[in-house]
């Protein structure tokens, strides 16, 4: 009896349930306010946008799980970097896509490793390290994009993101599912994944069982860069062209998607399924707000209040008097 109730309580308070519930409610609200909002076609488009956020949030998720105040604010600049690099590699040619993906993944990965080294070995707080790196990348982009055409998406890539591939679903959604499968496998079935949780939960203990803590921490920042770079490729596929601030709008949403997906900002607890649900909920919320015919200040306030309401449901810190 008690176990039944406690199981139900556990289910209801599970971040995943809440994020999915929030998504459904938001869809219903959207549909009521403006009929057509929750059509199948529109939902697929929403999911496409959510997929782009979801991919960058995967990297953010790893960094946050790794603990020690892990957060990567440089993902926005890395997305821009990935988009600009990919655009230049492709220049609108399908044949350039492989090189584009390679370069747009590798360069942010390497910069992410630098973030990781700063955080791990120099012990700069992640928030500040990645913020500083943002300025450096943006500055680098200004220098790099001088006189160089900022390129364009290849038609194949644009179609992959924007047009249905199979069963009316665009390719990017399959990619997202693939990334999700990899994330889940890595986090739940590999020693590397176990190690991420371990260092996020107790770094000292992780060192004492012989885990290469600095290496792991450095790598997860690298992976965050990698995911951001790949997001950049998706973004240029979505928008066709890139410009150097194209990624800025993803920074805080990527953190919020992770948090409302139930990953603790303290590290060591959470997972990617919740983050995916968080990305979807956040995307739907933003869409609903765009469709609402309201003044901008009212939209902003509704957005803020909704975030607070989600926090109320499960983003709370532990009670001190138990």
């Amino acid at each position, binding site marked *: 009896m008690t176990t039944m109730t406690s199981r139900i309580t556990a289910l209801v308070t599970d971040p995943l349930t809440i994020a999915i519930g929030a998504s459904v409610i938001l869809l219903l609200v959207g549909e009521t306010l403006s009929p057509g909002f929750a059509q199948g076609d529109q939902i697929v488009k929403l999911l496409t946008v959510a997929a782009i956020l979801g991919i960058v949030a995967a990297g953010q998720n790893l960094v946050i799980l790794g603990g020690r*105040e892990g*957060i990567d*604010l440089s993902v926005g600049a890395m997305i821009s970097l990935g988009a600009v690099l990919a655009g230049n590699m492709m220049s609108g040619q399908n044949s350039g896509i492989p090189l584009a993906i390679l370069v747009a993944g590798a360069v942010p990965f390497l910069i992410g490793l630098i973030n990781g080294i*700063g955080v791990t070995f*120099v*012990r*700069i*707080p992640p*928030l*500040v*390290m990645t*913020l*500083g*790196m*943002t*300025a*450096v*990348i*943006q*500055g*680098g982009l*200004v*220098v790099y994009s*001088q006189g160089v055409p900022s390129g364009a998406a290849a038609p194949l890539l644009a179609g992959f993101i924007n047009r249905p591939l199979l069963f009316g679903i665009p390719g990017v959604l399959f990619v997202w599912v693939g990334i999700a499968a990899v994330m889940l496998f890595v986090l739940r079935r590999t020693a590397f994944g176990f190690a991420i949780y371990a260092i996020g939960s107790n770094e000292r203990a992780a060192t004492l069982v012989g885990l290469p803590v600095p290496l792991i921490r450095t790598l997860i920042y690298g992976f965050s860069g990698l995911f951001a770079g790949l997001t950049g490729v998706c973004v240029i596929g979505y928008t066709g062209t890139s410009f150097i601030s194209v990624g800025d709008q993803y920074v*805080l949403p990527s*953190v*919020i998607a992770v*948090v*409302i997906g139930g990953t603790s*900002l303290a590290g060591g607890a959470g997972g990617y399924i919740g983050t995916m649900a968080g990305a979807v909920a956040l995307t739907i919320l933003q869409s609903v707000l765009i469709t609402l015919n309201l*003044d*901008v*200040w*009212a*939209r*902003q*306030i509704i*957005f*803020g*209040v909704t*975030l*607070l309401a989600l*926090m*109320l449901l499960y*983003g*709370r*810190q*532990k*009670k*001190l*008097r138990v």
Partner: protein
Amino acid sequence: MTALSLLRKQPWLITLFVLIVLAVVNTTLQPSFVEPSVLQSNLTTFLPLILVAIGQTYVVLAGDIDLSVGSIVALANVVTATVISALDGSLAAIFAGMGAGLAVGIICGLINGLFISGLRFQPIVTTFATGIIFAGLAIWVMPQAGLPVPEAYWQTYSENVLGIPVVAWVLVAGIAFSLLVSRLPFHVHLLAVGGNRTGAFQTGLRLGGIRIGAYVISGCFAALAALCLTGETASGDPLLGASLALSSISAVVLGGTALSGGFGSSAGSIVGALVLGMIGNVIFFAGLSFEYQTLVQGLIVLTALAGGVFVTRR
């Protein structure tokens, strides 16, 4: 006490050293730097960040963070400008406007504190959300930048009082506040709450009051920064201050305060904010081509952070 252990206890001394180096470099590049009018003009530029960083420090010391300070600045600024013009623009109206601005800061800080300490919300996301709300309110109060404040306000702000510029008085007041607070029991309690929250609770400290107090101080200093910005810009602008949240955190860290809480000082943050301001200054007077300004500035800030943290890390 060895030099290194002194630096560990007062890591902002390194930042102070960096500041002195920057000042020397700047004076070489721009000999007029030491002229009083130039000093005053630079201080006027740096002041809002200094003030916001002082307030941010207390929140960070308690182990929290305040990303809403930029929006509080905007809201306090538009409220001040609106109140002054809604009344008659007289001297009394100016004071009423300033009072309203400060009240906005205090209320915003209180709201943050209540959510975070009272309802146990997660600080980063909460202050991000309240920041969006405060910014929305600012646009509601004043949909578009404008609404000049009376000349008496901004003239006074750029003038001298008792032979010393008003901005210098504000800085002195900020430093005095920082030194006084550092000697209050509140400050130790703040460090305790940030250093080991459970332990602080078990010791019987009033956690709620302390954390809310830190947010109120932060809101208050954001409002003070807004009043300074109002003196600097002579008008209201709902988009003001957007960059202050993140740069104030950089200033706090540069000033030797641990982002995880429990260690540091607002005096350090003042130095940190001055360093951030001076870096931009030096880059300009070094005559760098514009394409490189953002990059070099980013690199210097990152190097300064890395250097400071590297020397003092435990």
